[in-house]
C-alpha cells in the first residue's frame, strides 16, 4: 500500500513540472516583464526608468533562464525561472503587489474557504445522491420524469442567478441572515448558512442527473437480476447491491475535488465577502496581480494531483478487484 502511494507520488512529479513550465511560459514568455510593467503602470506613467524600477522591485529584472553575468551555480539560480517558478516547489510564492507574503496569506485564507466549501460539498453530496437514488428507484414513473425535468431546468439556470436571487430573497426581502460578511469562531454560522445553502441548491441539477445515469446503468446489470432472483426486497437490492457498485464511478468524480475544496469558490466568496482563497484569486485577477494568480494556478494543480492520488486510494477501499492486486 505504501509502495503504491509512493509510486503514485512519483508519477505526479513530471505532471507538476509540466504545470510549472506552462505557467512559466504563460507569465514570462508570452509577455515580457516589460509588457507587464507597461500594463501595470498605465500608459501615462510609462518611462524606461519607471519600468526598470517596477521590474527591480519584483525581481523581474533578471534573465529568464540563464544568467550569464554571474558565476557558478548562480548562472541557473539567479534567473526568473528559478526564483519565480522553480521555488514554488518548496512553497515559496514570493510577494503580492501589496507587499504581503503570498504563502502566509494563502495559509490564513484556507480556513474560511474550507468553512464554506466543506459543508457545501458534504451536504450537496448527500442531497444529490439521495435524490438521484430516489429517482432511480422510481424509474420510468411520472415522478422520475418530472424529477429529471426539474434537474434539466435547474442546470439551465446560471450559477450567478442562484447567488443573486438567494441573496436578494433570503437576506434582503426576508432578512433571515446577513447578506454578506464573515465572523470568527462560532459566530460564523450566521454568515455561512446562506452561501452553503445556495452552493448546494445550485449543484443539484447536474449532479443528480449524472448520479441518476450511473444508478440506472447499474440497475440494468446482470447481478441485479441475480439479487432479485434471490427474492430480496427492492430497497435491499438498491442499498446493498446497486449503491455499492455505483459508488465506484461516483468516486472518480467526487474524491478528486476534495483537496480543491481548500481553494474555495470564486463566485460564492466574492459575492458573500468571505476572506477565503476564492475571493483572494478574484481580487488578484481584478488587480492584475500576476504573482498571486501564478501561485494559485500552481497550488490548484498540486491539490488536483493530490485529489487524483486520493481517488486511487479510495478505489482500493471500495473495489476489491483493485485492493487485491
Amino acid at each position: 500500500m505504501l509502495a503504491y502511494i509512493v509510486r503514485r507520488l512519483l508519477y505526479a512529479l513530471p505532471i507538476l513540472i509540466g504545470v510549472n513550465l506552462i505557467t512559466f511560459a504563460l507569465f514570462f514568455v508570452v509577455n515580457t516583464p516589460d509588457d507587464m510593467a507597461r500594463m501595470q503602470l498605465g500608459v501615462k506613467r510609462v518611462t524606461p526608468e519607471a519600468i526598470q524600477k517596477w521590474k527591480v522591485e519584483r525581481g523581474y529584472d533578471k534573465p529568464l533562464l540563464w544568467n550569464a553575468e554571474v558565476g557558478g551555480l548562480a548562472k541557473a539560480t539567479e534567473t526568473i525561472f528559478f526564483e519565480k517558478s522553480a521555488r514554488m516547489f518548496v512553497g515559496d510564492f514570493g510577494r503580492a503587489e501589496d507587499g504581503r507574503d503570498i504563502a502566509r496569506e494563502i495559509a490564513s485564507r484556507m480556513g474560511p474557504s474550507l468553512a464554506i466549501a466543506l459543508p457545501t460539498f458534504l451536504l450537496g453530496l448527500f442531497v444529490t445522491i439521495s435524490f438521484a437514488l430516489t429517482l432511480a428507484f422510481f424509474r420510468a414513473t411520472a415522478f422520475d420524469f418530472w424529477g429529471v425535468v426539474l434537474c434539466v431546468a435547474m442546470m439551465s439556470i446560471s450559477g450567478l442567478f442562484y447567488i443573486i436571487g438567494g441573496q436578494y430573497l433570503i437576506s434582503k426581502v426576508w432578512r433571515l441572515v446577513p447578506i454578506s460578511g464573515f465572523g470568527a469562531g462560532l459566530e460564523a454560522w450566521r454568515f455561512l448558512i446562506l452561501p452553503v445553502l445556495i452552493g448546494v441548491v445550485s449543484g443539484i441539477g447536474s449532479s443528480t442527473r449524472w448520479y441518476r445515469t450511473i444508478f440506472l446503468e447499474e440497475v440494468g446489470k446482470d447481478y441485479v437480476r441475480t439479487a432479485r432472483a434471490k427474492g430480496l426486497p427492492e430497497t435491499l437490492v438498491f442499498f446493498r447491491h446497486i449503491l455499492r457498485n455505483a459508488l465506484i464511478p461516483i468516486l472518480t468524480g467526487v474524491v478528486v475535488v476534495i483537496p480543491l475544496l481548500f481553494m474555495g469558490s470564486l463566485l460564492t466568496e466574492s459575492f458573500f465577502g468571505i476572506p477565503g482563497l476564492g475571493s483572494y484569486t478574484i481580487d488578484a485577477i481584478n488587480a492584475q496581480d500576476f504573482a498571486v494568480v501564478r501561485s494559485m494556478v500552481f497550488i490548484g494543480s498540486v491539490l488536483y494531483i493530490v485529489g487524483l492520488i486520493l481517488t486511487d486510494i479510495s478505489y482500493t477501499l471500495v473495489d476489491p478487484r483493485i485492493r487485491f492486486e
Partner: protein
Amino acid sequence: MLRVELLRLAFQSGRQTLVAVDGVSFDIAAGETFALLGESGCGKSVTAQGIMRLLPAVGRILGGRVCFDGEDLLALSEAEMRTWRGGRIAMIFQEPATSLNPVLTVGQQIGEVLWRHLGLRGAEATGRMVDLLRQVGIADPERRLNEYPFQFSGGMKQRVMIAIALAGEPELLIADEPTTALDVTVQAQILDLLARLQAERGMSILLITHDLGVVARMAHRVGVMYAGELVEVAGREAFFGQPRHPYTQALFEALPDISRRGRGLATIPGQVPSLGRMPSGCRFSDRCRHVMARCREQSPDWRKLDGHAVRCHWQGEAAEAGEWRHPLTEMEGAAGRSFLEVDDLKVHFPIRKGFLQRTVGHVRAVDGVSLAIAPGRTLALVGESGCGKTTVGKALLQLIPPSGGAVRLGSNELVGLKGQRLRAVRRHMQMIFQDPFASLNPRLRVGDIIAEGMEALGVSGGGASRRAAIAALLAQVGLPDEAMERYPHEFSGGQRQRIAIARALAVQPELLICDEPTSALDVSVQAQILNLLKKLQAELGVAYLFITHNFAVVEYLAHDVAVMYLGRIVEQGRAEEVLRQPHHPYTKALLSAVPAPRLEALAGVIRLAGETPSPANPPAGCHFHPRCPRASDLCRSQYPATVALSATHRVTCYHPE
C-alpha cells in the same frame, strides 16, 4: 409440480406491444428435468423470466397462469412473490462472470439468501455456507467464503451461482443456458454437478438451452420452442428416437457430425420471423419443407401420440432422407505439398509493472507452434478459450507481430516483413472473424466493404469491372446483387458472415483463416455457412485454417486436426487419426466431454478436474499435468518431447495412450 398454462408475454416498444411468448403451456413433475430447447430469439429465456416474474422493464405479462403446487404465481403480490423467488424457485444464469455482484464477497452473497428465506445468521449461516460450497465442489470453502467473485474462475463462479440458488432449498431450479459461456470440459463438470444435486435433493430443473447435446445429457422431457410458441413436447426417448415436428427434424439434420462428412448439411432456409411480423398461420410455414396450403392459414393445434405432443398439420413420419440434401464431393486423397509452413511460432505479450513499466514477465499466448497447411485442405486448430488459437491465426497474418519463429508462405518469410512486401504477401491469406456484427463496418455499404481489399491490394480494375467482380462474389456466397447498395445492419447474422466471406475471397486468397466463424450463429445458420465453406473449397481449392472449440464442426469439416493447450500444440494429425484414436489425455478428455445429441453416449466419459491455468504463469513441466489423470513425476518436471505415431500423427506426451 409446476404447471404453465397459456402463458403470454410481450415487450412494450413505443406504442407497439410485441408478443414474445404466445400461449406456452407445459408442466414439470417433481424431480424431473424439463428442457426448453430453441434457437436465439425464440422466447425461451423470456418464458423463464416470466415464470419468475423477473421480466425486464419493458416486459409485460399478457395472460396465462403459472401454477406452482396449485398456487398461481401470476396472481401473487410482488411482496409475496419475493418469498418464492430464491426460496422455492431459484434461478441461475448464462453469464456467471456478470451475474455475481463484484463488490460483495461470496459469503455475503450466499448469506443473503440464507437470511432471507431461512432466517439464518451468524455461525449457523456460515456453517451452512461452507456446506453449500462443498456440495458444489469448491475446495477450501472456509477461506473462499471471504473471497470476491473476481478471484474465482469462470466455472467456479457458476458453481457459486449454483450454491446461491441452492441456499434457499428450492424445489425448482431454473437454469438459463447455464453452460453456454463455459468451455466443454468445464461444461461437463457443471452438468454433472447439476445432475448429482438433482438426484440428491429430488429437485425439479427447468433447463433452457439451445444445445441438443446438453438436452441429451440432462433432460427427462423436452419442449421445443419456435418463434414464441412451443411446437413439440416429448419424453427424452421419444424426442431423440423420433422427432416429429419438421423444425425439430431440421435442427437434428443441420448438426454437423462425423457421419455427415462428405455430405451437405440440411439447412433451414430463411430465418426466424421477427416479433413484429409473425405469419398468421403456422409460424414455421415459411421455412418448412412439408408446408401445405393449410399451414399458411391456420395455426395448428396440438396432436398427441402417447405423450409425444406436436403442433403441426403435417402427419408424415420422420424425414425421408435424400432428396432435399445437396451432396458435395469431398476432396479426399493425399495432401499435396504444403504451401504455408509455421515453425516454432511464438507470441509473447510482455507484462509491465512498476514505476518505469519494466517487463516483469510474459504472457506466453503462443509458445512454439508448428503447423503446415496444404492447398485445398482444412486444418482445424482446436482448443478451449485462452489456449492461444486465435492469436496463432492473427500472428500468421502478421496482425499481431510474432515474438519468434517463422511463417513461410511459398518461399517468402513473413515474420518481420513490412510495408509493400507484406501487403503483397497478404493477398494470399485472409481471415474470417467470429462476430459477424463486429466484423463489418456499420457505416459502409456492403459493396464498399467488399471492395476495400480489392482497392488496397490492387485486384481487378476500377468502375464497371469491379462492380461485376463484387456481384460475382456476392452470387458466390449466395447473396443477391442489390446487397451491394445496402448497409450491414439490414442483414442477419448468417448473411453478414456471408458478406465477410465474400470480402475475404475478393482478393483470391489461397488460405482462409476462419476464427470460430459459426460460434455466434444458430445451428440452422451454422449449417448454411459450413455448407458454403465446403462448396467454396470444392470450387476454388482454397485451404482453411479453421480455429474452433466445437468438435462437431471439426469432425464434419476438417482434414487435419491440431489440438492446442496453453499456447502449445499437444497433438496433431489427420482428422481420422486424432478423432478416432486420440493419444493425448487432453484430446481424449476433450472429445469425451462434448455432449452428443444422441441417446447413447455417456459411456466411458473422462472428466477433467480444474480449468485451464493462466498462460502468464503456466505450470512447470508438462502444462497439462495438474489436470492429467496419468501425470507422473516426470510430467511435473519437464515438458515432454513430441512423439511421431505415424507419418502424420504426432503427440506431445510422456504417456500417450
